[in-house]
């Protein structure tokens, strides 16, 4: 048996490691463990039973983020005729739901849920997104190429795009008022504007406790679930509802795994193909052409 020296083994291992490191990229590294969220991160608990659909939050957001004036004023309730979504001109919208289970219509506020493991962040190929320790998912418009993969990836259909701009179109979404408020420990503008205390700002961990307490203390008032506690790996914005969540526009089929976990299956094959294919196909080549090579050798000798 041929002796394999320690040195040659190390060399080969090192070369392979470098190749894999260069080629395999941190893709799989990030995909190895799931991230439960920053321990001190903040969040908001939205209680649908308290919301009266006054749209004060929409108005406050509009002012805080210097968004263009809407077509209809914020006290116009005709907007409830249809189900709206977030747009480049509105980072948060409130929709009305008539449900058989509740006597009164229910209102649901939509904005970025600020996931613990954001799909937008993990799908972005220029690393424009960042999850801050405070809990916000923020976005750097100066590096955005405009591929809109984050919009495809977001399970909540939140990011909007400034399609109207030809020269500087960027992603438009709620940033938890990070620049002006959250980083200084202050609640976002919408929470501060809510007259009903339907929105509660606090540490995410505390809000989860508070939500479960409310469910326990008011039997029959709530569905026994906090939407966002576990959905797609957990979100900073969470919801309490008196009717099943799918009746008020929530997607209840999202599962508890973060979106990145669905992509891992592909990401793990990447380093394997990069490292195995060269040797495999050179081997095929040598096998396929061995007769010709033998003939060439004979000719030479």
């Amino acid at each position, binding site marked *: 048996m041929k002796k394999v020296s320690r040195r040659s083994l190390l060399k080969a291992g090192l070369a392979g490691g470098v190749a894999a490191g260069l080629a395999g990229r941190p893709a799989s590294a990030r995909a190895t463990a799931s991230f439960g969220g920053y321990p001190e991160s903040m969040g908001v608990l939205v209680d649908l039973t308290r919301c009266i659909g006054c749209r004060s939050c929409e108005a406050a957001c509009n002012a805080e983020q210097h968004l263009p004036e809407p077509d209809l004023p914020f006290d116009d309730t005709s907007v409830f005729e249809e189900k709206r*979504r977030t747009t480049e001109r509105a980072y948060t919208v409130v929709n009305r739901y008539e449900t058989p289970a509740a006597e009164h219509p229910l209102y649901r506020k939509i904005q970025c849920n600020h996931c613990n493991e954001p799909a937008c962040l993990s*799908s972005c*190929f220029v690393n424009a997104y960042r999850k801050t320790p405070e809990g916000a998912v923020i976005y750097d418009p100066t590096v955005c*190429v405009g591929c809109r993969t984050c919009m495809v990836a977001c399970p909540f259909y939140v990011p909007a*795009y400034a399609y*109207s701009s030809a020269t500087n179109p960027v992603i438009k979404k709620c940033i938890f008022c990070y620049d002006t408020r959250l980083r200084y420990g202050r609640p976002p503008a919408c929470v501060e504007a809510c007259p009903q205390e339907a929105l509660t700002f606090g540490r995410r961990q505390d809000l989860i406790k508070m939500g479960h307490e409310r469910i326990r203390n008011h039997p029959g008032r709530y569905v026994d679930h906090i939407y966002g506690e576990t959905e797609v790996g957990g979100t900073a914005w969470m919801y309490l509802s008196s009717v099943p969540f799918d009746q008020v526009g929530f997607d209840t089929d999202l599962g508890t795994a973060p979106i990145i976990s669905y992509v891992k*299956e*592909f990401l793990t094959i990447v380093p394997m193909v990069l490292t195995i294919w*060269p040797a495999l*196909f050179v081997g095929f080549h040598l096998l396929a052409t061995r007769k010709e090579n033998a003939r060439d050798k004979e000719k030479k000798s």
Partner: protein
Amino acid sequence: MRAAVANGKLGPGEAVQAGEAARWTLREKLLLGLSGRQYLALVFRNPVNWVLACIFAVGVPVIVGRFVFGLGWATHGSYDYPWGLFLAWGLFTMVPLSASGFMLGTTVEVFGRTDFKPIERLALLNGLLGYFFAVVYLQVDLGQPWRLIYPMFVSLGPAAVLFLVAWHVATYLSVQIAEVSPAFFEWIGWQRGKQVVRSMILGLTIAGIILSTLHQGALGALFTYAPGKVHPLWYSAPFQWFHFFISSIFAGLSMLIVVSSLCKRFMTWRCDERFLGSLDRLTIGLAKGSSLALATYLVVKIIGVAHDGDWLYLATGWGQYFLFELFVGVIVPLALFTRAIRHDRAGLARVAAWIAVAGIALNRINTALVAFNWKLYQEVPHWREVVIVATIYALYFVVYRFILYRWPILYEWREGQEEPCMTLSRSSTGG
């Protein structure tokens, strides 16, 4: 053009043939041996050019408008459907149809099947142009196309699937340019460059296999970011990349059969005997490869349904549509290819190839547009979007044809001989 040649008017084949004895000058190389006036007459005589002119007349202003007024003007600017026809057709369909380059590169250079050499260059060119125009489509779709190099040099997001696609398509484009460059070097008469590329060809080809495996698969993996949005029958987290990769094999081979049969029919004067004489046999060879890939794809598609437990969806309307796609796009071409191989009928293989190409387009558009947001509503592309897609495809056609007319793709540039050897006879020009 064939009609013109048949009418006894001067055709490009005859003109080039007339200059056989002499070295090729710029006139032979660029104007196919015609004078400027003759060449223009030829251009105007061809009805295809009139159709192209109409497309450009409508399409170019719309493309300009897209960049002046923004994406919201050219498309519906949908927040729910961020990706429209530009990517569904331009990226997700063009790229698999361009897999021919790495398939034939592997066949000839790695597996040593030199009998496929007459069609290798066409396969490589088909790959190069397909990828190049996929990038053109991408540039139309990107909000800020001038930042295309950002993921490479400015701000890197290496954990994203699109990062892999960007790097691999860019690298593979360079590999394909190198692979096709010998034809260009022969045409401009620079032998040194050709030899340099020749010495790297095995490395380039294997790089091509690696890059193609991963980015063809990665295009599928892009959809794994949207588990709730793509209909479960078109979505499979573990198999999506494999579905896209395997289907790119028969997509590329079938596209090559389609393109080569078009060349044989409409560009006979430019093909040499080596190409024309071997094409039927090679078509059957490509059909064998396609049918193997189709059979594999069919099995893995069924495994995908079984693995994810999607059987019940087959009973719904979506399931019918899924089975329709699978039947027309996979089972029918598979059956036709098999029959063509058994009875050695290249013509039937060509029919099968057309269907397979259409089937791939159907699958990719279904995944990106039809089965996407299946719980919401169906997006129908804006007419300007359709016009832009058609215009860029017309541009692709023009560039493709320009190169095939001139570079030694369909004919062989004999080594050690300054002038190309035209093996055409008068009768073959007329056919």
